[in-house]
């Protein structure tokens, strides 16, 4: 209703709000990272016992060059996420992708995931930014699942040439309803797992 008069102070508000960004700044070391580090240490030891130090170094150099190649894209993904957090009007996002956005929110999330360019280095920072600016778990799940299942990037680059046209097309057709269903199921479970106090 009062969207127009609000529009002017809104960016300043957003900028001020962006300072703490609750829920977004995460501890660099959490349990997930500790588990991963332990898994890596065990696997590296197994590789060392099996292939000796050469095997360990070979994987290390290969992965280091991969890491170097990925870094610029990670930076681009982080910048995309940050721009989206700053630019998108929070109240609009929470209206169209929030907990009460209904089927339409799930469809928007699905469409967004399907057309999002780039790889995981864009999809996850952008999804994380959407969560920050007011999308709920359901719409974000629809977006992430849609990106992995019907996003054109991976299908065109890898699946078509390797799996063949027939398989790929049918696989995508079968996948079409899944993002919306996953988002709806996510919402259904979320509301029951974290029942919030009536607003």
């Amino acid at each position: 209703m009062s969207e127009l008069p609000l529009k002017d102070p809104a960016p300043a508000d957003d900028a001020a709000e962006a300072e703490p960004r609750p829920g977004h700044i995460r501890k660099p070391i959490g349990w997930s990272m500790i588990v991963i580090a332990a898994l890596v240490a065990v696997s590296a030891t197994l590789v060392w016992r099996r292939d000796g130090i050469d095997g360990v170094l070979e994987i290390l150099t290969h992965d280091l060059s991969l890491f170097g190649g990925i870094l610029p894209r990670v930076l681009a993904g982080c910048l995309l996420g940050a721009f989206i957090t700053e630019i998108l009007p929070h109240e609009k996002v929470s209206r169209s992708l929030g907990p009460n956005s209904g089927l339409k929110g799930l469809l928007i999330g699905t469409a967004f995931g399907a057309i999002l360019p780039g790889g995981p280095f864009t999809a996850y920072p952008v999804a994380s930014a959407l969560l920050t600016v007011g999308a709920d778990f359901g719409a974000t799940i629809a977006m992430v699942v849609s990106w992995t299942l019907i996003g054109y990037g991976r299908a065109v680059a890898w699946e078509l040439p390797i799996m063949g046209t027939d398989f790929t097309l049918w696989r995508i057709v079968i996948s079409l309803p899944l993002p919306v269903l996953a988002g709806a199921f996510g919402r259904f479970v979320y509301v029951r797992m974290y029942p919030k106090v009536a607003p």
Partner: protein
Amino acid sequence: MSALIIDIILWASVASLGFIAFRRGRPVLTASLREGSMDFINIVPRIALGVIGSGYIAAVIPQEIITGRLGPNSGWLGVLTAVIAGAATPGGPVVGFSLGAVALKAGGGAPQVIAYVIAWALFAFQRVLLWEIPFMPARFVWFRAAVSVPFPFLAAAIAMAIGKP
């Protein structure tokens, strides 16, 4: 080649969003740049661990186990095997789809291979560890993975029902 196109699209998106931010005023642009760089600095160690570490995890998983029993007569047990195999497949899209193609050529049933590819897309542990957990709140990642569990099975059921591909 396709990597170059991806990079162009990616940085073009960054540039156009940056331009929109700039039009909103310099503080908006500088705030976003600062936030983005801070996120980047926070995420680099996790990505490093993921990229450099997952090579070792991939090296100790034997691939024969993955495409073992996905024949057309394997039924729902085959689908279940396919789902676990999809989640356990190491490596990127080349490995995931190649193993799917191998399974198909080796006589794997279409619903089982569909379940394999979809489970790989949804749960491949390397992508979850390497990308999803570093970038997203851990609570979201586990929740997302948990509610996605029924869907490879649903996809296999649809494939069985329509008799395609």
